[in-house]
């Protein structure tokens, strides 16, 4: 393949070449970074919460009036829930993963310690908590029924036993093979009393999905009531969630008239909502990528068509002088390859510059190196496909055109 005539032809239409090259460059820079952001968001959205989300839902109860007895209501509700057909486990809890609202605090290793060793979310649950979350106890034991007490947010004393996630245990006791039986303190008061780790669960997310402590959760044996309200976490037998949800809402609604039952939501629903912004970002960036590739491809088609039209006579002359159709096809494809490559080289630099800007302005991670070479391959392919139509048309120009004058 003779490159020199292509280059000299390109030099004569420098502006068009620069325009297509710039377009390819910007496309590469945007597509690489947008794809990278999409990838990060997908990773975030696919992180497991540690719960059995498919079969689990939540519902809340808020009593009103002076005479409302929250403790007896919770006891009655839980008995009712656990007796319903299809219910595998039920507990009260103050918060759930994926809910973005809850209680967190620092833990320390010694009384009087000034800054905490690790921060964690608190889940106040009863002895059915681990079963209701659907997480795995990997060491130690579960709570016993006699360890569960009622408490309000105004009570000071926190329980003396706790179950923590493996991730939290690793932060608290990095060098300890078996953290069960270890002590820790809530906060850093000088006269704080220790609490003991009685069990380790595999994994359970904190309520805040955007937080740096999302893997740190501490289960505490208590029924926490915020005034007259309570919330329940219910896991059903596989596949029976929707049916049980309906039954639970109805049964709780009629069981006690001096309260409001609300917040009936599946964990799946919570997952969709809590990641709505990330999902939106992936859809928007995805649309930008598609539109951008489309525009760039159309730009190449338009430009190539124009060049073919402009050079019809030269093509005819070449054909008359013995060039085959394949030669003409290859000519336009090589030309496109050269322009695209020049654009891609500029685009590669732009892509890293863009990534640097995102890193500085938004603390986003560095663009992994392989995005750019993969982008090269995709845009080479896109360019070749886009130019194929006009190039085929050029190859069909009959040699006789050369003899015609305009």
């Amino acid at each position, binding site marked *: 393949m003779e490159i020199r005539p292509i280059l000299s032809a390109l030099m004569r239409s420098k502006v068009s070449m620069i325009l297509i090259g*710039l*377009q390819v460059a*910007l496309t590469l820079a945007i597509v690489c970074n947008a794809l990278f952001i999409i990838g990060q968001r997908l990773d975030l959205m696919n992180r497991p919460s540690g719960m059995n989300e498919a079969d689990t839902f939540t519902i809340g109860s808020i009593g009103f009036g002076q005479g409302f007895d929250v403790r007896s209501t919770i006891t009655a509700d839980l008995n009712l829930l656990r007796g319903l057909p299809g219910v595998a486990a039920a507990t009260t809890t103050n918060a759930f993963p994926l809910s973005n609202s809850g209680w967190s605090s620092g833990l320390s290793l010694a009384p009087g310690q000034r800054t905490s060793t690790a921060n964690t979310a608190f889940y106040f649950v009863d002895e059915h908590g681990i079963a209701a979350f659907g997480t795995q106890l990997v060491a130690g034991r579960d709570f016993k029924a006699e360890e569960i007490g009622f408490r309000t947010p105004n009570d*000071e004393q926190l329980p003396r036993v706790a179950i923590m996630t493996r991730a939290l245990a690793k932060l608290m006791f990095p060098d300890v093979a078996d953290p069960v039986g270890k002590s820790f303190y809530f906060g850093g008061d000088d006269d704080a009393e220790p609490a003991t780790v009685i069990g380790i669960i595999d994994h359970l997310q904190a309520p805040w999905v955007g937080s740096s402590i999302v893997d740190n959760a501490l289960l505490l044996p208590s029924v926490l009531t915020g005034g*007259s309200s309570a919330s329940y976490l219910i896991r059903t037998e596989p596949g029976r969630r929707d049916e049980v949800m309906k039954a639970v809402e109805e049964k709780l609604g009629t069981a006690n008239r001096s309260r409001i039952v609300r917040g009936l939501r599946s964990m799946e629903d919570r997952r969709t909502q809590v990641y709505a*912004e990330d999902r939106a970002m992936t859809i*928007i960036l995805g649309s930008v990528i598609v539109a951008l590739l489309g525009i760039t491809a*159309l*730009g190449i088609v338009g430009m190539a068509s124009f060049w073919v039209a402009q050079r019809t006579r030269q093509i005819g002359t070449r054909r008359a002088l013995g060039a085959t159709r394949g030669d003409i096809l290859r000519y336009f494809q090589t030309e496109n390859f050269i322009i695209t490559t020049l654009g891609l080289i500029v685009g590669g630099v732009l892509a890293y510059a863009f990534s640097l800007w995102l890193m500085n302005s938004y603390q986003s991670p560095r663009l992994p190196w392989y995005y750019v070479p993969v982008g090269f391959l995709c845009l080479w392919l896109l360019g070749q496909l886009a130019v194929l139509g006009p190039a085929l048309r050029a190859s069909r120009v009959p040699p006789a055109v050369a003899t015609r004058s305009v």
Partner: protein
Amino acid sequence: MFNYYLQLGLRSLRRNPILTALMVLGIALGIGASMTTLTVFYLMGSDPIPWKSSKLHYVQLDNWSPDEGANSDNQPPDQVTYRDAVALMDAGKADKQAAMYKISLPVQPENPDVKPFMALGRATYADFFGLFEPAFAYGQAWGRDQDAQHARVIVLSDQTNETLFGGGDSVGKSVRMDGVDYTVVGVLKKWDLRVKYYDLTNGAFNNPEEFFMPFTTAIDTKRRSTGNNSCWRSPGAGWEAYLDSDCVWIQMWVQLDSPARQEEYMAFLNSYVEEQKKLGRFPRPLNNRLPDVKQWMTDQEVVSRDVEVQVGLAFAFLMVCLINTIGLLLAKFTRRAGEIGLRRALGASRRQVFAQFLIESGVVGLSGGLIGLALTGLGLVAVRSLYQQYANVTHLDWTMVLMTIGLAILAAVLAGLYPTWRACRVQPAAQLKM
């Protein structure tokens, strides 16, 4: 002449329909993407109360732990303690002032057809209504004396009034909430806020509350905040200990009518904190702040990073579309060298050819802008369905419509400059020879 060129432009659009469609589509897509993101960006960040935003100040006091700050960037906590809120209210040094927090209460309607429901409310002071100026449909705000009396009074939103009383004048009627009766003193008109700037801690895009009641009444009935609550040390047991603690859960706004008043108030805050330091509170260095509405919105990052990145990407996309348009216009104009040569030979000046082709680019821009406007509308519908909480910031107003069309024409004319300049350089002789 302008009309004639406009006609020529329109006719030329029809002559090369595919090339023209590509150009118009390119501009339309670029404009649609940029204006969609720009609208969200602009409405999120725009001043929610322009006539007095510089007079409204949020109060930040640094009562945090001696060992670590409330935030990594040395900002004080974003709310204040009960002790400090009440002390500042009692001092009354600002032109208007209101401490407030978010509550939720079960409403027990008298009408048996309406089921009991949970209502989100705001416990605040009488000045709240003077600070943020919601309009009243019936009645008025409660008075400062009722703040002092812990009066069982309530102001309803239009929606709550609709639910409970069918939308009529309900002033003087009573509403039972969690076993306590409250007398309605006022009903608000529909209050649309793009950004709920007075409580950015608990959701910048939430709707205003369903009812408002005196702060003192809510404290009297031991209503905890259902919003954000942060403590750097354990508050101790019981309600009184909680009120006395260093936990922050209250928002505090003041109105200061002049820069001099702002300075006075800052001095007052600093002396207040110095006094508290003598009592063993406020262990950190003096770090009080009084951001105004816009500063507070910036501090709290109301405009999300995602939206900023989207605006950046959309404009980069618009740039690609414009580069594309330049190339296509160049192709189109070059093809018409013969026509240009003829016009020049017949006596048209370069300036006239220039005007003609620039207007033709403008026509492309206008067409692209009109389609882009439709795409912007569709884009906003899409954004609304993707981000439900952005319902209040995804509307086109007249400014944005005009800006869309204007930007499209400007972009197309800019894109047309180089191709037009090339077109003007056509030598009449070279084209007429053949």
